[in-house]
C-alpha cells in the first residue's frame, strides 16, 4: 500500500524541477501524438519554435499575442486569489472593448491622447462593471460565480454580435456586417513596431505585484482567499473586498478589450477576444498565482499559439492542436502538485509485537 505524507521540506528549486518535469512529460506525450499523425515530433517542435521566434517579425507577433494574455491573467489572478472562480474574462474583454469602442466611434474629433485615455478608462469601466454582476450576486445571494461569469460571456458576445449586425453596422461597408474602422486618433501608437500595449502590460504586472504584496487591500484579498472566516474574524469587510477586487479583476480584462480593439483590430468585432479569456485561465494557474511568473508563462503560451499557426501550414496540423497541447501541459502540472505537497511512502506492514 502507498500512503501520502504531507511534506514541509519542499523548497522553490525542487518545486520548480517537479513542475518543469511535468511540462516535459506533457511534451513527450504530445510528441507521441504527433508521431501518430505521421510527423516527426522533433521537426514539429523545432518548426514551432522557429514559427514563434524565427524572425523579428515573428517575435513581434508572439509579443502581440502575449500582451492580452498577460493582462487578462493579471485580472483572473486577482479573482482567483480570493478563490472567486472568474471565468468570465471573455465577456469582460468584450464589454471593455464595447465601451472603449463607443468612445472611439462617437468622440473621434477629440485629440489622440485624450481620446485614448477616455477609451482606456472606458475599457476599465466596461469590464469592471460586467464583473461586478457575478460578484454582487455572489455576496448577496451566494450564487455560484463560475456559471454566472460564463453565462455573461455568452451574453456579452451576443451583445457585440447584435451591435455588429444591427445598430453599429458600418453603412459604408456595402452590406458586410462590420463595425466602422476607428479613426487614426483612436489607434494605439507603436513602439519598436509593436503597439504600446506591451508597455502597459509590463506596467500592470508591476502594479499588480505591488498591489498584492504591498497594499492593505492586496493583503486583504489574500486573506479572503485563505479563509473567509479568518478574514471576518480579522475585521475585514469580506463582501466589500470581493466587490472591489472583482471590479479590478474585470477592469484589467476590460483594458485588454480596449487594447485589442485599438491596437490590433482597429475596430470592434465578435472575434475581439480570440479565446484569450479561456487560455488565460490556464496561464494564471500555471503561474502559481504569482504576477511575476505570468510574463514568462504567457510568452511561452503566446509562442505556442503563434508557432502552431505556423506549423498549420507546413505540417497541416490544425490550430486546435495548440489548445490540446496547452491543456495537456496544465493537466500534467496540476497532477504534479501532489508530489510537491506530499511525499509518497510505502505503508509499512504492521508488525505484531506479541
Amino acid at each position, binding site marked *: 500500500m502507498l*500512503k*501520502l*505524507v504531507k511534506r514541509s521540506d519542499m523548497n522553490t528549486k525542487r518545486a520548480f524541477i517537479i513542475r518543469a518535469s511535468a511540462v516535459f512529460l506533457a511534451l513527450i506525450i504530445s510528441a507521441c501524438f504527433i508521431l501518430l499523425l505521421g510527423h516527426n515530433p522533433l521537426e514539429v517542435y523545432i518548426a514551432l519554435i522557429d514559427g514563434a521566434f524565427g524572425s523579428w517579425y515573428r517575435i513581434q507577433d508572439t509579443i502581440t499575442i502575449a500582451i492580452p494574455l498577460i493582462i487578462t491573467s493579471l485580472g483572473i489572478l486577482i479573482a482567483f486569489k480570493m478563490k472567486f*472562480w472568474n*471565468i468570465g474574462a471573455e465577456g469582460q474583454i468584450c464589454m471593455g472593448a464595447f465601451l472603449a469602442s463607443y468612445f472611439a466611434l462617437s468622440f473621434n474629433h477629440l485629440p489622440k491622447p485624450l481620446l485614448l485615455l477616455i477609451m482606456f478608462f472606458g475599457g476599465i469601466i466596461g469590464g469592471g462593471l460586467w464583473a461586478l454582476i457575478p460578484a454582487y*450576486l455572489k455576496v448577496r*445571494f*451566494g*450564487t*455560484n460565480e*463560475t*456559471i*454566472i461569469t*460564463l*453565462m*455573461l460571456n*455568452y*451574453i456579452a458576445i*451576443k*451583445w457585440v*454580435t*447584435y451591435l455588429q*449586425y*444591427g445598430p453599429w453596422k458600418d453603412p459604408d461597408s456595402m452590406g458586410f456586417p462590420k463595425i466602422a474602422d476607428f479613426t487614426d486618433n483612436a489607434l494605439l501608437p507603436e513602439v519598436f513596431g509593436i503597439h504600446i500595449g506591451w508597455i502597459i502590460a509590463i506596467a500592470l504586472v508591476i502594479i499588480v505585484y505591488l498591489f498584492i504584496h504591498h497594499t492593505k487591500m492586496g493583503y486583504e484579498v489574500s486573506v479572503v482567499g485563505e479563509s473567509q472566516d479568518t478574514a471576518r474574524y480579522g475585521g475585514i469587510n469580506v463582501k466589500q473586498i470581493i466587490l472591489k477586487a472583482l471590479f479590478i479583476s474585470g477592469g484589467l480584462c476590460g483594458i485588454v478589450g480596449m487594447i485589442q480593439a485599438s491596437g490590433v483590430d482597429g475596430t470592434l468585432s465578435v472575434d475581439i477576444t480570440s479565446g484569450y479569456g*479561456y*487560455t488565460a*485561465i*490556464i496561464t494564471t*494557474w500555471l503561474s502559481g498565482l504569482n504576477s511575476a511568473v505570468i510574463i514568462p508563462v504567457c510568452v511561452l503560451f503566446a509562442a505556442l499559439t503563434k508557432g502552431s499557426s505556423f506549423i498549420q501550414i507546413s505540417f497541416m496540423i*490544425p490550430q*486546435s*492542436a*495548440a*489548445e*490540446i497541447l*496547452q*491543456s*495537456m501541459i*496544465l*493537466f500534467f502540472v*496540476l*497532477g504534479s*502538485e*501532489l508530489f510537491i505537497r506530499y511525499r509518497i511512502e510505502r505503508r509499512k506492514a504492521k508488525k505484531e509485537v506479541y
Partner: protein
Amino acid sequence: MDISFFTAAVVAGMPLLFATLGEIMTERSGHLNLGVEGMMLMGAVAGFGAGFYTSNPLIALLAAALVGALGALIYGFLTITLKTNQVVTGLTLTIFGTGLSSFLGQSFIGEKMPDRIITFFTPIKIPLLSEIPVVGPILFSQDVFIYMGYVITLILGFYLYRTRFGLNLRSIGENPSVADTVGIHVDLYKYVHVLLGGALCGLGGAYLSIVDVPQWTEGITAGRGWIAIALVIFSGWNPYKAILAAFVFGGLNILGFRIQHLNISQSLLDALPYLATIIILVVSSMRNSSKQSPPANLGNAYFREER
C-alpha cells in the same frame, strides 16, 4: 404555442437532460466536474465519427459514451487519485475537449450522417401511449434516443433513492470519511460515478451531432454543458426534477426561433437561455432550503490519511 413547439422543446432539452443527469451522478460523489462542455463535445465528435464510418447507430452511441467517460477518466484520475483542484481541473478538461473535438472533427465538416442512422433515429410512435391527448404526441412520438433519456432518468432516480448503492453514493457526497469508516470503498465509488457521469455527458453531446443537427460543426454544444451545470443546481441534484428542468430549457431554446417574426434581433434572442440560466441560479440561491443544498462535501478532495 402548439403541440409542435413542445415536441421540439423535448428534442432541444435532450442533450441538456443527459448532461444534467451525468453531472448529478458526478456531484453526488462529491466531485464538481466543470468539464461537462468538454466531455459533451468529445462525445459529439466521437458519436458523429463512429456513426459516419460504421453506419451503425449502436456503435455511434457506444463510442460517444466511451469517449465521454474517457474525458471523465482524466478528470477522475487527477481529482480523485492526485487530489488536484476540482475547479481548475474541470475547466482544463473543457478547454481540452474543445480543442480535441475541433481537431478530430476537422475532417467531418460538411459530411452527412449515413441514412441508416438517420432512419434509426426517426420518430417512432409508441402504441397506446402516443394516443394520449397532448402528452402522447409530445412525449411518446419521438426518437429512440429520447426514450432512452426517459429510461435512464427513471433508472438513475431509482438507483439513487431506492438502492443500497445509491445510499452509499449519497453518503460519500455528504461525508466521505464516515462512509469510509463503515467500509464503503470511497475511491471506487467516486471513479464509477465520475466515469458514468462522463459517459452521460458524452451521450448528451452525441444527441446533437447524431440526431438533432445531425452534422459536425465546431463548438456544436454552444454552452449547453454550462447550462447543464446550472440545471443540476436548479433540480436540487434530483434526476426526476432534472428532466423537467431540461424540457423547460429546451423550450427556451426553441422560443428563440419561434418569435423571430416579432422583429427582435436574432442575436439578442440567442442570449435568452443564458440570461434565463442566470435568473434560475439566482432564484435557486435565494430559495436556499436545506433540501436543495448540494452534497456537503462537493468540491473537497478526500484524503484518507487526514481522516
